[in-house]
């Protein structure tokens, strides 16, 4: 079980040691933005504070001072404030009467306190490394430091990493970064150490609303499909799954999401692609240029003979 969606090195290279592919399903519709996952991750994985000796760093951009994933943030709870009036968001699929009732109710209950009358919503989503099926970071790593575990996840071996930084611009999600005072790159390990002991990753365990769900990837996908159906049936038609299928540009995410808006509304790419998918073309163009270089210099030597 759990052997669907094989990656390049998993399960084949692990033989009998291969385990079911593990992942996260992050259901942002129940995220309350408490950041328990960020804290639990830092605690368990001993991830240093982001700003080191510097004073606290405020963005002024909603409640989001974590800003992005990086060497020192392996979970990032994005806060996005959207001023979308409840009654004109056609994505809601409500009749005008329904919308008016809702709006009126919100006012009479004193809920529409923010941006008086305009209506607004918060999108909250706990972002994480996607543990891609076709992981660009792993493919471009020149030392083999980034590897595929027996759980089908993508992990940096910190005793091998030499800080070349190639994986940083290779990741289509901007997940990896270099830790400046250390020189190596760091990212989510899906709590590899805890998985080995059949424990759930720290963030999933800490999440109070079950927005972060951990388990076998194929099981999570079924659960996500059910959840999507529930939400659309309940009228929340903006709900969508992100990274839940094999056919996308990275072959499916090991850690995928249920979102309430387009991915870019959460700083995520709508069509992420594993860059090495185009490597054949890149090598062909490079070989052609190399041949042209030799041919051109040969012509120069012949022509320049006086």
């Amino acid at each position: 079980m759990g052997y669907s969606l094989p990656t390049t090195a998993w399960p084949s290279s692990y033989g009998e040691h291969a385990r079911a592919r593990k992942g996260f399903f992050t259901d942002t519709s129940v995220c309350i933005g408490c950041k328990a996952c960020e804290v639990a991750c830092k605690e368990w994985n001993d991830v240093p504070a982001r700003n080191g000796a510097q004073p606290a760093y405020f963005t002024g951009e909603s409640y989001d001072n974590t800003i992005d994933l990086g060497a020192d943030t392996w979970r990032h709870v994005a806060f996005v404030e959207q001023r979308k009036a409840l009654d004109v968001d056609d994505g809601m699929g409500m009749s005008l009467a329904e919308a008016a009732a809702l709006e009126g109710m919100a006012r009479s209950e004193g809920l529409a306190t923010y941006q008086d009358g305009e209506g607004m919503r918060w999108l909250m989503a706990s972002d994480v490394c996607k543990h891609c099926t076709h992981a660009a970071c792993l493919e471009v790593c020149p030392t083999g430091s980034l590897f595929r575990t027996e759980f089908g996840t993508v992990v940096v071996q910190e005793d091998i990493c030499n800080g070349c930084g190639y994986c940083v611009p290779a990741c289509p999600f901007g997940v990896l970064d270099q830790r400046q005072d250390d020189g190596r790159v760091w990212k989510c390990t899906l709590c590899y150490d805890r998985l080995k002991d059949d424990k759930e990753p720290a963030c999933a365990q800490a999440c109070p609303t079950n927005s972060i769900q951990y388990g076998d990837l194929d099981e999570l996908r079924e659960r996500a499909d059910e959840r999507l159906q529930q939400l659309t049936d309940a009228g929340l038609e903006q709900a969508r799954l992100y990274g839940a299928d094999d056919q996308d540009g990275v072959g499916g995410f090991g850690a995928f999401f249920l979102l309430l808006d387009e991915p870019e509304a959460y700083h995520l790419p709508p069509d992420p692609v594993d860059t090495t998918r185009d490597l054949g073309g890149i090598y062909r163009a490079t070989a052609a240029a190399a041949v042209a270089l030799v041919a051109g210099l040969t012509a120069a030597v012949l022509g320049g003979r006086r």
Partner: protein
Amino acid sequence: MSRPELGTTRLARRAGSPQQRGPASVGHEGAKTTPYGRPVLKEPVWTWEIPCYFYTGGLAGASAILAHLAEGQGNPQLARRGWAAALAGAGASPAFLIADLGKPARFFNMLRVLKVTSPMSVGTWILSASGVSIALAAVRAWTGLFPRAGRAGSAVAAALGGPLGTYTAALVADTAIPVWHEARHELPFVFAGSAAASAGALATAWTPAKHAGPARWATVGGAVVEVAATQLMEHRLGSVGEPYHEGPAGRLGMAAKAMTTAGAAAIALRGRRSRAAALAGAALVTAGSLCERWSVFKAGFQSAARPDDTVVPQRERIERGDTRGAVRRTSPNGRVDTDKASPAIVAHRD
């Protein structure tokens, strides 16, 4: 190599310290796709050594080819200087590469594997093999020692020269950075032209004019290819190529074109007769080639910082129907039992 002091972070380096900038945002001004204009991608962490390495690698590769061909043509004056330039380039390259590593002492970890999916891994092996063969050929050319090994080295170095001069283009093209990845078909030619121009210019500068004919041709030909391929690349990139028209990448690119063109013209018109013109032309072409590499390097950073350059082409792909993207709105298994929908979900609406 300038790494920030202990405890400071990438973010602080990128956006200025909070004291300087007040409320900090990493967002790109005027971006329309992501909230607060925050980038989707990470900027590379590479520092100044990398564009220098682009130059020295190109110089080494093209010089080796030039020297090998000059040898075959019975032009030892040019061949010897070509091998010296190749050796200098091949010696400086690893130094730059290693200095840029976060853990320089662990450079050798690159040599524990060969991964074809990683242009950096392939390139490290090309560079290592080139270094050894160039050294052998250079020793033979200057001292006459080890004639057999030297001849073999010369042939191997010439064969590896093309890949050595161009693989760095594959390296940057094999990333998610739009301005690099979308230029994957043109960038190798920009680098090949630049390599030929660099090697030609250096050889032109210190080879007696009588023997430097091939070097002058290489300089002029390389310069033409470099400028033309750059032009084509910028044109084909369309709006994703915007970084080449603004900021550091834009300024460096303009300087590169001006200097390369002027230098090539000087060498083509007066390089044979006037020593001063040859020297000035060589200096200009060298500076132009360096600026071109730097412009490409900087453009990658600017491109990564612009979320629209990442998101808009992806959206367009989806809208054209080339791809479905990573989003699915409906359940594939048809409807599921809706009784499972809890009241909490309905309440979630507001």
